């Protein structure tokens, strides 16, 4: 049940994030959508590693079988890398705002500023 609710939430988060990225015109809103979508991706892998009644994959931590350690290890680094790439993207947005004076993606594409 936990696994299923996690999977459902992750799909919803990914869809909402992509929707925001496409529909919003402000670059920072787009990044926020990317943030939500990546949270959905991380949650997807974590929810896949879960089985009913498992314990964390640490030796001697409670009874029962352990959860799958591989997806958790994959997303552990992804969370931190997400922070780094987000900081880089925001730095680029700041630079763009500095020189083009707008954060509106449509105005930037048209080159009207």
């Amino acid at each position, binding site marked *: *049940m*936990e*696994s299923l*609710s*996690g999977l*459902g*939430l992750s799909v*919803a*988060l990914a869809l*909402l994030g992509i*929707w*925001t990225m496409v529909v919003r015109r*402000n670059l*920072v*809103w787009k*990044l*926020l*959508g990317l*943030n*939500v979508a990546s*949270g959905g991706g*991380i*949650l997807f892998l*974590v*929810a896949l*590693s*879960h089985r009913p009644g*498992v*314990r*964390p*994959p*640490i030796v001697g931590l409670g009874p029962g079988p352990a*959860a799958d350690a591989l997806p*958790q290890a994959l*997303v*552990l680094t992804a*969370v*931190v890398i*997400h*922070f780094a790439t*987000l*900081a880089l993207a*925001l730095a680029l*947005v*700041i630079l763009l*705002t*500095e020189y083009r*004076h*707008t*954060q*509106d993606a449509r*105005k930037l594409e048209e080159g009207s500023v």
Partner: protein
Amino acid sequence: MVAILLAVLALFLVLFSLTQKRLLWGVIGVGVHSLVLAGLYLVLAAPDVALTEAAVGFGLVTFVYLLALRRTGKLVVAAVPLYPLLYPAGEGIAGLEWEILERFARWCHRDLELIWVPRAEIPRLVQSGEVHLAAGGFLSRGENGLVFTRPLVLTRLVRVRVAEGPVGAVLGEPAAHLVGPKGKLFPEAADLARALARGELGEAVTDLLRLREWTMQNLFPEAETTVLPEEYGFAFALNPADEELRQSLEGFLAELERQGELRELVRKYLR
């Protein structure tokens, strides 16, 4: 059970934040949402990921966003149309204040958005924070709860007398105090002019710039005008809580005045 509750809470938070108009609320909502996600990871037997996500999502990412959007975003202006100051021209908007606002928005990297509103609505809109600035034919009478920048253009109130009859003015303007108990108040200046032209009013109280607009349209050629002695100024009005915006706008205007560009702009539009 806990997992379902957390998932519903996270979904609610993300729906709340992604449907916001203000970027600030969106960022804060997503931050809290990632804290809830960390709790969900804990329930899903992934304590390592939960630890990392709590520290990253709630602390670092939110703060980096907040630092980045410290002074970017939209600048929403509520305005009353008035011919040489701020008026719709074809598809776009033109005027003295519009040119100043456009330069200011470019200077502080914000996207300008303008909404036309009736005069009496302006204090409420600015005080509630729905708009950042009030501009255009917005003549202040020193209202409480608003702060004003330096006056850009000075003007005086004027009585426009066409015939015998009741006095009219625009609701919310300083002239509204002069109409007396029998006077009529109108939400917009266009309604006032229409009423005066139809003969519903004998007299209107307005200001010199509005009278100039009417004269240029040749509305009341035979009117008899009396200029009142008290001086008023057209200025931008802001919310007192928004001290940062007031300081930057005041600094920008001072810079314009120092370089003499402000006087040139006034001369260009008010020849």
